[in-house]
């Protein structure tokens, strides 16, 4: 039996369509930002925030909430769209993205945006922070769980592998990490810039319970997350195969959509696709 019913799956699919539109609207209005990586990570955020994480938008500082560290901070438009939709802050803030005085900074700021657990933007640091949060949960004897999301290019950073060793050494089974494996970074395909492969073997060798899923398939994602939740003694890495720019045909797998905003015509085309 799939981890998710057909009706629930359809609901998430529609939700994601709407959120993808929000992402493009925000980045278009801001005139800058990172649509590619936001669209690739979006379904991971959707499954986490709508089916998995125990967070309360109206009590978002509840000490017993689950935590998410978006280590690939440049994808924050996706996180902001989800947080606004969940009611962490008014949706009207979305159009202030990247503007002077906005609560929505170009990269996540934990003090400015309700629901953001950690300020990120300098790649490679989030997994260590998530480890610290997981250790804190353990010291508190709390069942809360910690989630971290990394980009594939991001894990070229050495600190990720320091943190990978730490999580395994301390048996952080309350930690679930995702690799948004869209294959692209800024200067090209990760396999050309500096390959990550063999990636599953690497995480296994580092002592992680490692799963591979289609990062746009809710049932697979949810099943992997459930398996992570019951796995004991080791952190889980979910290698999520994704498509950079997912959902907008002319952005998919295109390197130039890493860090540029759609102009008016492109925005209209994208929205039309997403409304279908």
């Amino acid at each position, binding site marked *: 039996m799939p981890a998710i019913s057909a009706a629930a799956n359809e609901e998430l699919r529609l939700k994601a369509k709407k959120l993808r539109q929000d992402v493009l609207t925000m980045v278009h209005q801001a005139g800058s930002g990172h649509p590619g990586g936001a669209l690739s990570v979006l379904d991971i955020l959707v499954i986490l925030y709508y089916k998995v994480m125990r967070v309360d938008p109206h009590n978002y500082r509840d000490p017993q909430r689950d935590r998410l560290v978006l280590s690939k901070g440049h994808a924050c438009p996706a996180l902001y769209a989800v947080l606004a939709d969940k009611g962490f802050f008014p949706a009207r803030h979305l159009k202030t993205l990247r503007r002077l005085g906005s609560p929505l900074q170009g990269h996540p700021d934990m003090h400015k945006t309700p629901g953001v657990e950690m300020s990120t933007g300098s790649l490679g640091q989030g997994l260590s922070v998530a480890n610290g949060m997981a250790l*804190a949960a353990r010291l508190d004897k709390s069942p809360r769980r910690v989630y971290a999301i990394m980009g594939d290019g991001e894990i070229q950073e050495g600190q990720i592998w320091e943190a990978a060793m730490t999580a395994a050494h301390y048996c952080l089974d309350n930690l679930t990490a995702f690799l948004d494996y869209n294959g692209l970074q800024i200067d090209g395909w990760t396999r050309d810039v500096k390959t990550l492969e063999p990636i599953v073997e690497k995480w296994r060798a580092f002592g992680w319970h490692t799963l591979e899923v289609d990062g746009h398939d809710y049932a697979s994602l949810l099943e992997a997350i459930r398996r992570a939740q019951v796995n004991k003694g080791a952190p889980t890495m979910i290698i999520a195969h994704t498509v950079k720019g997912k959902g907008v045909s002319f952005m998919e797998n295109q390197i130039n959509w890493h860090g540029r905003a759609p102009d008016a015509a492109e925005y209209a085309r994208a929205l039309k696709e997403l409304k279908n």
Partner: protein
Amino acid sequence: MAEKTGIILPAEMATREAYGLALRELGRRRDKIVVLDADLSQSTHTALFAAEFPLRFFNLGIAEADMIGTAAGLAANGYVPFASTFGVFATGRVYDQIRNSVAYTRLNVKIAASHTGLTVGEDGASHQTLEDIALMRVLPNMTVVVPADARQTFLAVEAVANYEGPVYLRLGRPKIPRAVPPEMPFELGKAQVLREGSALLLVATGIMVGRALQAAAMLDREGLQAAVLNMHTIKPLDEDLLIAMARKTGAVVTAEEHSIIGGLGGAVAEVLAENCPRPLVRVGVKDTFGESGSPEALLQKYGLTAEDIAAAGKKALRKK
């Protein structure tokens, strides 16, 4: 606190050793104190805490960047982490981690560096950080504390734990004599007048405080009354007291076991230049790396003795 807890500190003790004792003491009273180290727990003396509170001690291995990030995560979730290693690895090596995950986030992380300055000694230049105060001082939200002796370290650890926000605590390797009267309380950001004098002001930090007092005694024998100010908190700098004393004395010397660029001398120069320009001479390492040698030989070679401070005092007076 030292007296209250029955811990009697000897007349000579390394500040890192006092740190280890203070941390263990703190751990006994506060269960949110956690300690992180990067394979140097014997040297940093965090091993004392580790032995008593193994579940609240995390050795990250030789992975300083990861240590800072882990500390940030613990702080974000209600703990008060003290992260320790040698000064070079605790600051420059992990500068971006401190900048983005600790200072920008204003997380309650305490970075306590055990081996700083020339007195690291025989290990040589690779291990002698002479720029850490400058690096930490320039970061918004960061507090920078350099205790003058072991007892002051004991008090500073308590004050730093009570303060909410990122702190860099600069400690040292060698045993050093008492410099601050034992009954003197410690308050973050409040410099201490250890000696009054009207001719000249000696502003010192860390191990140079004791040397500044010696220098003041030397000058006194020549009829020059120098005041001595212990600037144990370099950020936020006690500007009011500094300005008042600079006005009163009219000539200033700074003394630090650090580059003369960007550290105490830099901070004092900035404040004086803007508020009350007075002749200033900076005693410290003159824009160069260190080398191997005994701590005392190094301090002599690089011009960080009491005699050097006294000579700098006379130079400042000539510029009056």
